[in-house]
């Protein structure tokens, strides 16, 4: 896991963006950006390169699932590692996200250890 990788946090709740940012900083990540929804995330992704997206599912305007679908159908972005960080923990949700090409799935509430473990697994370290 490269500590210098660029990470984009996408969540409509500033609270969750702050909690995730705090955890990532504790791990040692410093290249962290934030978006408050799927639409603003896509705008940022068109301008900057990222190594990992941590996205909420349940957001107004554009859900995390729609964002994932858009990313997977975009030639430039399609291989971007994408982790869903969500309160949606029902089986159908998880299956839908896996079908759409999510790399990992973190169910809220989570501990810092879970976040580290899931990111580690995505990068095979």
């Amino acid at each position, binding site marked *: 896991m490269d500590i210098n990788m660029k990470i984009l946090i996408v969540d409509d*709740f*500033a*609270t969750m963006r702050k*909690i995730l940012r705090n955890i990532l900083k504790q791990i040692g990540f410093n290249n962290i950006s934030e978006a408050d929804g799927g639409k603003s995330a896509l705008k940022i992704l068109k301008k900057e390169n990222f190594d990992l997206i941590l996205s909420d599912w349940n957001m107004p305007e554009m859900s995390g699932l729609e964002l994932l679908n858009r990313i997977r159908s975009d030639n430039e972005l399609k291989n971007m590692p994408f982790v869903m960080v969500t309160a949606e*923990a029902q089986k159908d949700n998880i299956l839908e996200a896996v079908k759409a090409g999510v790399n990992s799935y973190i*169910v809220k509430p989570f501990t810092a250890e879970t976040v580290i473990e899931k990111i580690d697994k995505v990068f095979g370290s």
Partner: protein
Amino acid sequence: MDVKLINPFINATLNVLETMAFIKPEAGKPYLKKDKVAQGDVSGVMGFTGETNGTMSITFDELCILKIVSNMFGEEMKEINNEIADAVGELTNIISGQARKELEEIGKVFHGAIPSVVTGKSHKLESMTKGPKIAIPFKTDFGSFTIEVCLESKS
């Protein structure tokens, strides 16, 4: 209302606050609420569809939510502001998600909406959902909060 539908909300609340805020609240005895008013300083409300329609709300006293969010952020929160309101919305969302996961395990599938938050000293919250409303009081060392669950009867 079937008690099996209420326990997932109690379990979810305890799990979420312990994991995110390192607080172990004590759940009181659930009771059937006769009036439509929830009184507190900040509330999160979320609607459900699916098995039946319903709502869930969580209403905090000021001191209680300030301590919870201070623990979540690792910094002291001194007043109810936009950050506190946002945190209550997210807590509502996460508790609802956990409760719906446990409900799914007993064959009851619910879908959640985007939560809303109401703030204001001693505000009153009136539920528009038709159906029995169960209130579950919780105590912490820093104050109290109440969860209310209202699910429409299946016609």
